[in-house]
């Protein structure tokens, strides 16, 4: 729970950032460059910008406490509604990417650790070195070029589902889940094929730290006494590695997963922009470029909330993987 004060800190910080620093939204949202001083002043009063800063902060905190994040000037909707509409798209993308990355990173890391200096080990090292150097916006565009333009197997890289496919009824907001629940496999297939490229782009980005950490901690665990004992007792190699060693090696991997997830939240902005993905990050970016305060503040607050939730989840997972750690 150490991150709860951080949440409060982030809220105050973003508030100060958006209010104290230059860039007057009242001027921006006035009807035009010729707007009179009176009109600007009216907008300022309407937005509460004429009050002293501490009072604005207290009002802001009060509103957050009541779930009011203000209204987006761009869409005209309350920010809470916009964020709720768009969050599932971002989460679907992030979770799919994380799952993909884990499915690749764990076997690769374990394989590399089992045979140090083998071809596989060098391959994994190369992948890790390159993986951290390729910016997501470049790899995403390269994927589009290769799979959409050259191979023609990927759909048009815009949005979550083909515009001609029927949108499944919204239950969870996760298109894959909704389509599966509705039994609409055509829509499911369309959504999945839209999801593959962005998810792969992001998975590639986080593959490196996960694989590297798996390899390192697996290497350390494989030399420990209990692994040798297991081997000496005649247990199968498979059992020793996958049951006894892996479980111990997973702890650092779980720790780094929290950090990986938060970098993914940042990388989301770039990936959503490349693939025109209608998630929260692209929403915040559009608002940001239009100096529309409320959505950006709401977005940063949402990120902070997710970040606290993920840290909590990591602590819980830690307790599951290692019963010696008490979750208190």
């Amino acid at each position, binding site marked *: 729970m*150490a*991150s709860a004060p*951080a949440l409060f*800190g*982030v809220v105050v910080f*973003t508030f100060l*950032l*958006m209010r104290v*620093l*230059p*860039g007057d939204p009242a001027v921006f949202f006035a009807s035009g460059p010729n707007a009179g001083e009176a009109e600007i002043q009216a907008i300022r009063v309407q937005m509460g910008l004429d009050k002293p800063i501490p009072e604005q902060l207290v009002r802001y905190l009060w509103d957050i406490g009541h779930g009011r994040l203000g209204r987006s000037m761009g869409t005209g909707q309350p920010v809470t509604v916009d964020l709720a509409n768009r969050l599932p798209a971002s989460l679907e993308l992030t979770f799919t990417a994380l799952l993909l990355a884990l499915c690749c990173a764990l076997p690769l890391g374990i394989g590399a650790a089992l045979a140090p200096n083998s071809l596989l080990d060098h391959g994994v090292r190369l992948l890790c*070195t*390159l993986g*951290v*150097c*390729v*910016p*997501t*916006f*470049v790899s995403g*565009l*390269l994927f*589009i*070029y290769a799979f*959409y*333009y*050259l191979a023609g197997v990927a759909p*048009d*890289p815009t949005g979550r589902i083909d515009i001609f496919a029927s949108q499944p009824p919204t239950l969870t907001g996760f298109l894959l889940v909704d389509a599966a629940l509705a039994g609409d496999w055509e829509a499911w297939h369309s959504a999945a094929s839209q999801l593959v490229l962005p998810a792969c782009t992001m998975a590639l980005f986080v593959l490196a730290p996960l694989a590297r950490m798996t390899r390192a901690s697996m290497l350390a665990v494989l030399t420990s006494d209990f692994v040798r004992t297991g081997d000496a007792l005649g247990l199968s190699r498979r059992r020793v590695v996958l049951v006894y060693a892996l479980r111990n090696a997973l702890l650092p991997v779980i720790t780094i997963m*929290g*950090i990986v997830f*938060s*970098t993914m*939240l*940042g*990388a989301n*902005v*770039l990936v959503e*922009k*490349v693939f025109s993905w209608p998630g929260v990050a692209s929403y*915040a*970016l559009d608002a*940001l*470029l239009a*100096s529309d305060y409320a959505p*950006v503040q709401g*977005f*940063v607050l949402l*990120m*902070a909330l997710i*970040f606290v939730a993920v*840290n909590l989840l990591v602590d819980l997972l830690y307790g599951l993987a290692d019963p010696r750690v008490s979750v208190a």
Partner: protein
Amino acid sequence: MNATLRHAAWVLRGNPVTLAAGLGVLALALVALLGPSLVAYDPIASNVPQALQPPSAAHWFGTDQLGRDVFSRVVVATRLDLAIAASAVTLSFAVGAVGGAFCGYAGGRLDRWVGRFVDVLMAFPLFVLAMALVAALGNRVENIIYATAIINLPFYVRFARAEVNVRRNQGWVEAARCAGNSHASVVLRFLLPNVLPAMAVQVSLNLGWAILNAAGLSFLGLGVRPPTPEWGILVAEGARFITTGKWWLVVCPGGALMFAVLCFNLLGDGLRDILDPRLRT
């Protein structure tokens, strides 16, 4: 010093990758320095009849939608990209190392709070923070530098804190204090030089990260503005043409970006090997 150089040479002989990375960084620095005088075309002069030509002998990296030579733009962009990354890292290094060293030296409650704060900050989506910072400070190049510096800061503070914490009660620090040095002098003249080599590794690794971040921000349209050549913007401009198969607009600036980050990362890894005391026997 001589022993260090000999050790470095010995490590480099056994580690050609680091040598190559070092040469790559040197080449990048030269390109950044000489930049505009290396290219045959004006990087911002448009030549519409020649628009969107694939790479050829005249235009090595092809031309963009306004007929500008992509090779010239990529080469000229090197200076801006490296300058942004270098100033950001220098700034956060200066502030972070000194601040972190004082915290680590002082210890106590302040140190614990700073440590906790930095740990939490490091786990926060830093790219989002940088975006918000640039947006709030205003859409200018120097603000990209400040934003990148601020998100790099936690790494240096944490590192300097930890390194100084280990050393603060060692004999030679005690001796420096007994000799009548003030606390500030002990930190700045004795402890800081002692932890600097280890931090150099961090600088090299961070430079790569800073380049990625700055390019990412300008890819989004924050900070550097067209028509200024910058790798992130070049990729962003090329992105519009990728679905029609104009690959060179993305591959060439993206490749330059990747090359720079790769060189700094490999150099950082290599430097760590050189400075690792376990190797120096």
